[in-house]
């Protein structure tokens, strides 16, 4: 189904990997495609051998899913399948000298077996240099769940080798737009983190924007203009059940969940003046947070739930501020580096803010360390926006434009690499990465 890219150690310093398209086909849906646009210098070479007990090349090809996940992380360079001389499916079958010659540091092998009414997937991770077994597990699965099992394997391998939990089993929400202005069609889509299994959550002739995941990863809040004016909705993904939580006169926008999941921060307007409010979802209590004549919007909660970060142009241009909820008359300016900083998004550890910054003439994604206030620009395009951290903090997904179309892209939070998740049809934008939480 898809090409495999290899960065051998000997080639690890190569600056650009040729554009390699890994086409994910799902009939009837916008397709997201992972484009490796930038090689990663220190990517660790790893061989993920096709698993026994299943045909190679199908959409359930476990090794292909695992290799692609590891590649997407930017930290690994999976060995090209055609360079594999043998196909071991268990540790006992691995001839480590073969894989040393292929410059792989690590190897993943495994197989799919019938298990009662379902299937079981066994896999092992070995160090090629020492032959040591690093991980060996048997996971229950079934025909429909093989991709999910593959993502789980990638999570475990990633965590074993990096010390960071993998986020490959999570999902992303984004907005896809088809058609030419002014007659466009908007869809809110939820897909696996690798772009596979896109499912349309909402479809409308009117704009949909700003999807935001609840902390438990079960609900999405978003803005829809389906009533010819903006309103904020909360939708339970498992059931599709949704409720309109704010449709006040004027703007209803920029929903952000409180860390305990009980409330939202929202942007509302009175006579055109945008301010930030909090809404208790159970009691419907609305509390005003900011009262400034400027545009105050794009709230994001601090990890302790005691304060909000937000965008405001109260000083003349968009900058990020922080306000304590128990002392909301004073807001502290957080960003000073560039002339435009907007849309703050907190890292999962609460220590960094991703944001849009106007850097050398381009709108780019930057990450600011809250302790040092040091701003690190991650991207280099002209219209990057809507950053969202992966739940393990290792990656930031964001929206960019190329060839006149919107696409999604991923950067490592340390700025080491970027890669694109582009759609074959229409624009995709406004990505939000699902937090960890109960796996669904």
């Amino acid at each position, binding site marked *: 189904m898809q090409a495999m890219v290899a960065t051998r150690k000997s080639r690890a310093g190569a600056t650009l990997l040729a554009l390699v398209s890994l086409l994910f086909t799902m009939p009837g849906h916008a397709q997201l495609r992972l484009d490796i646009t930038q090689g990663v210098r220190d990517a660790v070479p790893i061989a993920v051998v096709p698993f026994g007990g299943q045909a190679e090349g199908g959409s359930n090809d476990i090794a292909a899913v695992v290799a692609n996940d590891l590649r997407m992380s930017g930290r690994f360079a999976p060995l090209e399948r055609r360079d594999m001389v043998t196909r071991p499916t268990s540790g006992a079958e691995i001839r480590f000298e073969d894989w040393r010659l292929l410059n792989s540091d690590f190897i993943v092998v495994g197989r799919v077996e019938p298990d009662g009414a379902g299937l079981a997937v066994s896999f092992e991770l070995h160090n090629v240099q020492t032959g040591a077994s690093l991980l060996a597990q048997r996971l229950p699965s079934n025909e429909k769940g093989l991709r999910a099992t593959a993502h789980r394997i990638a999570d475990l391998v990633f965590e074993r080798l990096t010390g960071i939990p993998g986020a490959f089993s999570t999902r992303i929400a984004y907005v896809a737009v088809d058609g*030419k*202005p*002014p*007659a*466009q069609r908007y869809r809110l889509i939820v897909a696996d983190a690798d772009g596979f299994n896109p499912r349309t959550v909402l479809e409308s*002739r009117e*704009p949909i*924007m*700003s999807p935001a995941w609840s902390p438990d990863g079960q609900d999405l809040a978003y803005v829809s*203009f389906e009533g*010819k*004016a*903006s309103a904020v909705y909360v939708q339970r993904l498992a059931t599709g059940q949704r409720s309109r939580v704010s449709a006040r006169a*004027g*703007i209803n*926008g*920029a929903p952000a969940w409180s860390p305990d999941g009980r409330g939202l921060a929202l*942007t509302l*307007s009175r*006579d*055109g003046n*945008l301010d930030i409010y909090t809404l208790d979802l159970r009691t419907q209590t609305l509390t005003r947070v900011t009262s400034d004549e400027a*545009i105050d*919007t*794009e709230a994001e909660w601090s990890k302790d739930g005691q304060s909000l970060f937000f*965008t405001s*142009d109260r000083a003349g*241009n*968009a900058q990020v501020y922080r306000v304590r909820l128990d002392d909301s008359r004073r807001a502290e300016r957080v960003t000073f580096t560039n002339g*435009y900083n*907007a*849309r703050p998004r907190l890292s999962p550890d609460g220590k960094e803010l991703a944001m*849009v910054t*106007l850097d050398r003439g381009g*709108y780019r994604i930057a990450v600011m360390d809250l302790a040092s206030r040091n701003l690190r620009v991650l991207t280099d395009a002209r*219209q990057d*926006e*809507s950053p969202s951290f992966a739940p393990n903090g290792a990656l930031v997904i964001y929206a960019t*434009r190329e060839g*006149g179309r919107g696409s999604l892209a991923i950067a490592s939070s340390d700025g080491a690499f970027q890669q694109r998740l582009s759609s074959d049809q229409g624009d995709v*934008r*406004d990505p939000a990465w699902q937090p960890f939480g109960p796996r669904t």
Partner: protein
Amino acid sequence: MKLMHVLAVALLSLGLVACSKPTKPDQTTPPPADSGAATSGLGGEGAAGAGTGAATALTPQQQALAAIQQKNVIYFEYDSAEIRQEYVPVVAAHAQYLVKYPTARVRLEGHTDERGSREYNIGLGERRAQTVRRALLAQGVAESRITTVSYGEERPAVEGSDEAAFAQNRRVELVHAQ
């Protein structure tokens, strides 16, 4: 979609919808030299809106509407919500129409170009719509007759990521209902 098309065709045949190509900034007649500051949007003489040879079947109100809808889009500079001088007479013409026909209502739709953050652009589009709203209020239009909505960058008028497209998309559209 189909319904919208039918509706659009029907409205077009009544002469109620301006041509889909928005007025370009440079096609607008310059305002009188003594008009007030563009910021306030109060200085227009209300002379804009050339009459059209509307069909005789139209009521006077429909004719007046068709005339002002020749220019129903106001364009803005980058990151600005100021009404440029050339649009002061356009706003004034719409204000006169709204004052003259008490059942007429207008919806102000604010838009931005695609650069920058989406929700911040919703704010910027709203600010533009509010500037036009205040200009209409100052010229005697009742508050209850005006609604505003901001689409930010979500509903561009034209595609494209160059300055020409950006200029077409930074706008307030005055959408009338009778």
